[in-house]
């Protein structure tokens, strides 16, 4: 498994290939479509992330200090963003995630392009992942 820094750099690199935001959306949509299927029985209210216009469910499991994330959303671009977050943070230690600054989100321009509307609740998703990590350190 590549390091957290390497994975973040790879994601930033992939995103920099697209100049146009519409193309980045296209890419996020593809990622969203290929996200691993989320079991329906996990779509419970306690897994819902608050502050999103679309519904986002995040399931966290802990195995020997390692966090495993699964997530879903009814909106596909949001799903694409989740899939990026999962790719970067899934399978890492709680300590490593809690210490991270989530800076790749700024670097690919997700925050300024999506967050002003708070539509997809990007901040809520990040906060939830960070809190889960802090809780399990």
């Amino acid at each position, binding site marked *: 498994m590549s390091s957290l820094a390497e994975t973040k750099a790879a994601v930033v690199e992939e995103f920099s290939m697209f100049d146009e*935001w*519409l193309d980045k*959306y*296209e890419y996020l*949509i593809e990622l969203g479509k290929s996200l691993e299927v989320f079991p329906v029985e996990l779509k419970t209210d306690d897994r819902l992330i608050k502050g999103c*216009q*679309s*519904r986002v469910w995040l399931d966290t499991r802990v195995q020997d200090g390692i966090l495993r994330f699964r997530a879903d959303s*009814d*909106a*596909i*671009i*949001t799903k694409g963003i989740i899939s990026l977050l999962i790719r970067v943070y899934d399978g890492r230690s709680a300590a490593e995630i809690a210490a991270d600054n989530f800076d790749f989100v700024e670097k690919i321009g997700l925050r300024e392009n*999506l967050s002003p*509307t708070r*539509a*997809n609740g990007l901040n809520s998703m990040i906060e939830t992942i960070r809190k889960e990590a802090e809780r399990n350190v």
Partner: protein
Amino acid sequence: MDIHQIRSQFPQLGEKVYGRQLVYLDNAATSLRPVQVVEKWDEMSLRHNSNLHRAVHKTAVDATEEYESTRAAVAAFIGAAEPAEIIFTSGTTQSCNLLASCLENGGFFREGDEILICGSEHHSNIVPWQMVAGRKGLKIKVLPVDDRGEIRISELPALLSGRTRLCAVAQVSNVLGIINPIPEIARICHANGTLLFVDGAQGIPHLATDVRQLGCDFYAFSGHKMYAAPGTGILYGRRELLEAFPPYMGGGEMIESVSWEKTTYAPIPRRFEAGTQNISGVPTLRPAMEMCKLLESREISAGSDKIRTFLLDFFASRPDITLYGNPADPARKLPIFSITVEGAHHEDLALILDKMGIATRSGQMCAEPLMDRFGVTGMLRASFAPYNTMEEAVYFTECLQKAIDMLK
């Protein structure tokens, strides 16, 4: 004036977003502002700024004159019997709260009384009534809409009881865009001794409105949705009803005299306007109302009708798109189009349209009970103003198609 001359008065229509021409289709949230409105605001702020009613100096007299003549102009604009029936508020939401509070504190409701609210209302015309109902032990009943979004008027008489004190309904829902049959509702309500409050927030920007022809007892709207400054709004009420109201907030200007023993209150409408008012904003209602009248011209409304027909046909031709608010008589439809698309989430559509330069709205649109009624978590809404063009409508449908293709 033709549409291009009109458009040149709304500078924001020339703005670019992400390097693309802005296509503003979120007019039901707030309209754009014409230069005349901004100039009025500037004039009031830079040359005539002064507090109202209080001082004897020339500037104060001028500012008061601007404010009070706006009140008279609003009264004439909506066909009120006299300026005193016009209360200035900060917007429709405050108008609803003022009305609810005054009815409650004026002893209008008794425990067990009922309020009938239309099922397609904006939260602003639901929550204040729920709050009063909670405090006073009132029952809220719902006047339902059918699958087309039309009020089930045939059910209205049976929903009214001897205890129904008030009916609250929008002239036009901000989601459905259907012109509701207010005069008929007024007749049925009044025959039952029920007062009628009409939320005109979406009606006033599109419809020449006469409150006495509508037959309502109270009427509210927001300045910012009809080209005026934000933070301006109106509550209209018939004199004999307003006169029975206690004050809304206590403070300056709403009093007649204050002493430690006994304070008496100013007559209507000042009784309801405590504290320093929106002295720069309110006068912008005058150029805004002039703009409304200009936009009622035959040429402009013919253009709007064409856009409506074009979009109704477009949505009807698409089995994957559901349009909410599809009246049997298309003439009752305003150009507010809320849709869901099979296999495409409203938020995704709005995000992609945004990157194409189109401003739309997605989500529950402050009408959660209506979303529940139609069994959806949200919708995509494109709301047109009279200054929008057919080219923009066509561009919207093309971009919507592209967005759907991207998402499928």
